[in-house]
């Protein structure tokens, strides 16, 4: 069998065995939930509740501002304690609504929906927008924006990103194993927006059991195809997945829609189903709590806003002293100084490790071995780019196509000299993006 793949990439230790067979467990929400107003790319949401208000589960607490933005919903019932800046996983202080959980879990009544087959495109998009759904694979781009390309007729492929290539993460895998019907239905709903599109599932070959389930559910429908990809990081990166499944390539100046593709994450599709068919806004997400420092690794269904501290406690606490704690996967996640940050819409995992490999492998001289060039899925020259970045040579950096970097971290991973290539490149790249925005 030919496996779909791309050139470059790496094979890190995947650590998935720790949590892949553990069914999703409902996590307790804790006393205080924090909802940063910026959990997505785009404009910050605006609070529609004020201090002291009582809110119910599923009640909108912050309204999207403009088209590229997303609303935020309360995931517990209780009172708004305060709206103040709180630290998020990225380390920045973001205005957040803080709600004290009254443990009643009193829910709003969700609007009744017509059967999805009878909905038109506008209604579907409106329901998705209203539910505050964002790309739950990590980028947190508002989904209704992604689903509104200039020409819906030109979309030929809608890709369900089931590759979950980040090591340790099993949240998407568990969702696939436990509720494949809702994921397939989510894709069916999206295909209604794009009459000329085929639905592709991109599943890595280390998740064959999930692929089998998807195949069983879609075998009667010629509009779907389950594609098995080689397990390789970063197979789940948008450009690399499109290349693997369709052979089409795109660069940083293009969007997937420009090559007729739209890519959606597993949990995003699941949330679309719940929003469109059941009228439920985005309230939960799956978080894998894992790593060798964790007593009992778990896959939790978590109410957004729950503190990571709460999750660690429910996973049995720490078996060993953690030295590095990461929100997300080890390749692209954010290191946390402590656990006092909330789970957001795009949080996929909490990884607690007893070793700090970044610290352990302090940088030495580049020996020009070229491993970073081999690993780079964008076919760049990471060591040269990092060198230019450290000298802050903007012109040279642009000339060597530094803006094409997808920040996957493969170069830093393979570097035998422990050089922090991705870090250096990222710093310059983000500065340039920031400058261009102004």
């Amino acid at each position: 069998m030919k496996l779909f793949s791309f050139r470059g990439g790496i094979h890190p230790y995947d650590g998935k065995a720790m949590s892949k067979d553990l069914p999703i467990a409902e996590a307790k929400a804790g006393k205080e939930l924090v909802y940063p107003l910026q959990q997505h790319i785009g404009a910050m949401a605006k609070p529609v509740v004020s201090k002291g208000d009582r809110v119910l589960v599923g009640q909108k607490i912050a309204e999207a501002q403009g088209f590229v933005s997303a609303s935020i919903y309360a995931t517990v019932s209780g009172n708004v304690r305060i709206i103040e800046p709180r630290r998020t996983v990225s380390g920045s202080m973001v205005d957040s609504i803080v709600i004290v959980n009254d443990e009643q879990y009193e829910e709003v009544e969700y609007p009744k929906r017509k059967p999805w087959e009878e909905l038109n495109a506008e209604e579907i998009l409106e329901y998705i927008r209203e539910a505050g759904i964002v790309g739950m694979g990590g980028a947190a781009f508002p989904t209704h924006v992604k689903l509104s390309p200039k020409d819906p007729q030109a979309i030929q492929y809608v890709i369900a990103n089931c590759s979950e290539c980040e090591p340790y993460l099993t949240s998407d895998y568990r969702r696939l194993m436990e509720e494949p019907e809702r994921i397939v239905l989510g894709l069916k709903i999206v295909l209604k927006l794009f009459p000329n599109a085929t639905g592709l599932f991109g599943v890595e070959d280390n998740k064959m059991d999930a692929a089998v389930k998807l195949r069983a559910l879609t075998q009667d429908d010629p509009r779907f195809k389950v594609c098995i990809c080689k397990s390789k990081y970063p197979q789940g990166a948008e450009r690399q997945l499109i290349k693997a499944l369709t052979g089409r390539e795109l660069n940083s100046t293009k969007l997937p829609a420009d090559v007729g593709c739209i890519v959606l994450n597993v949990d995003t599709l699941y949330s679309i189903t719940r929003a469109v068919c059941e009228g439920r806004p985005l309230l939960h997400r799956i978080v894998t709590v894992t790593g060798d420092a964790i007593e009992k690794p778990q896959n939790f269904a978590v109410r957004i806003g729950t503190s990571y501290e709460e999750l660690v406690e429910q996973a049995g606490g720490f078996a060993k002293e953690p030295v590095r704690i990461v929100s997300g996967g080890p390749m692209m996640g954010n290191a946390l100084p402590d656990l006092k940050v909330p789970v957001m819409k795009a949080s996929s995992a909490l990884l607690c490790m007893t070793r700090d490999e970044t610290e352990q492998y302090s940088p030495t001289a580049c020996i020009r071995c070229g491993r970073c060039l081999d690993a780079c899925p964008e076919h760049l020259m990471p060591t040269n780019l990092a060198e230019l970045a450290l000298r802050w040579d903007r012109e040279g950096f642009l000339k060597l196509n530094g803006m094409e970097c997808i920040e996957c971290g493969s170069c830093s991973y393979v570097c035998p000299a422990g050089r922090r290539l991705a870090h250096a490149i990222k710093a310059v790249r983000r500065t340039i993006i920031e400058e261009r925005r102004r």
Partner: protein
Amino acid sequence: MSEVMLNVSASPHVRAKVRTCHIMQMVIVALLPAAGYGIFHFGYRAALHILLTVAAAVIAEYLFEYFMHRPITTGDCSAVVTGLLLALNLPVAAPLWIGPLGSVFAIIVVKQLFGGLGQNFMNPALGARCFLLLSFAGHMTNFTYDTYSAATPLATLKETGEVLDLQAMITGNVAGTIGETSVIAILIGAVFLILMGVIDFRIPGSYLLSFAAFICVFGGRGFDVTYLSAQLAGGGLMLGAWFMATDYVTAPITKGGQYIYGVLLGILTGLFRLFGPSAEGVSYAIILGNLFVPLIEKITVPRPFGWEGKRK
């Protein structure tokens, strides 16, 4: 954990296990068959050469860094590789001080003065070998061993046009420098490096193929298998192609560049061997090739992913 703030740093938070010192150690292991055969073939004096040359390289690196108040990097084993390669390029009859002198030149002049590991534009071991060849031509081309004087098979080939004993050239039972004579020993090391993912065929393959093509076209013998085999097996070609042309620091980093570099080395080696005054040409070809590396890299910047459809 409660109140402690953990370190944070940018992702990724995991690293591959292969470090610089592991790569160097693998190169050292890969050179052991050639070194071992050299000692077996040329006797204990070869072992003395190797020991002194390697020790001098490591000590030179340590002392230079110590007195320049730079971090000590002898732990990365790159000085051992340099010393070992230089020793394998010495004739066994050379005086014992010549290896250490070359090591000091390699480490201090070629490597450290240009900024240390990764910064030298020329292969240190070859730079030192050429320095020694030019300064002590007599010692460096004296291939006497076991008290009888012997010309290297390549020199005989150049003078008389005769291939003496191809089988001996391949096993290594001929005159030459300590590590270059046995094709088999060198290839064992090369296979090891390829299997371990340290080197690949791009540079050595294009080097040897283009050299063979050059010999066929300009050697005056057409496609003469015996002559061609003698050219390939003789002199420093095998050691050079597998262990020195593939030196990370002084070879192009781009894939396309590596092919160009290999072809360039093949042509230069052919030129020097056929039309130069000496039968040898590998060392000069490689250090001359080193000078072209920045230029080669400049014209072989890989095309980024998805570049055809660039918008704007």
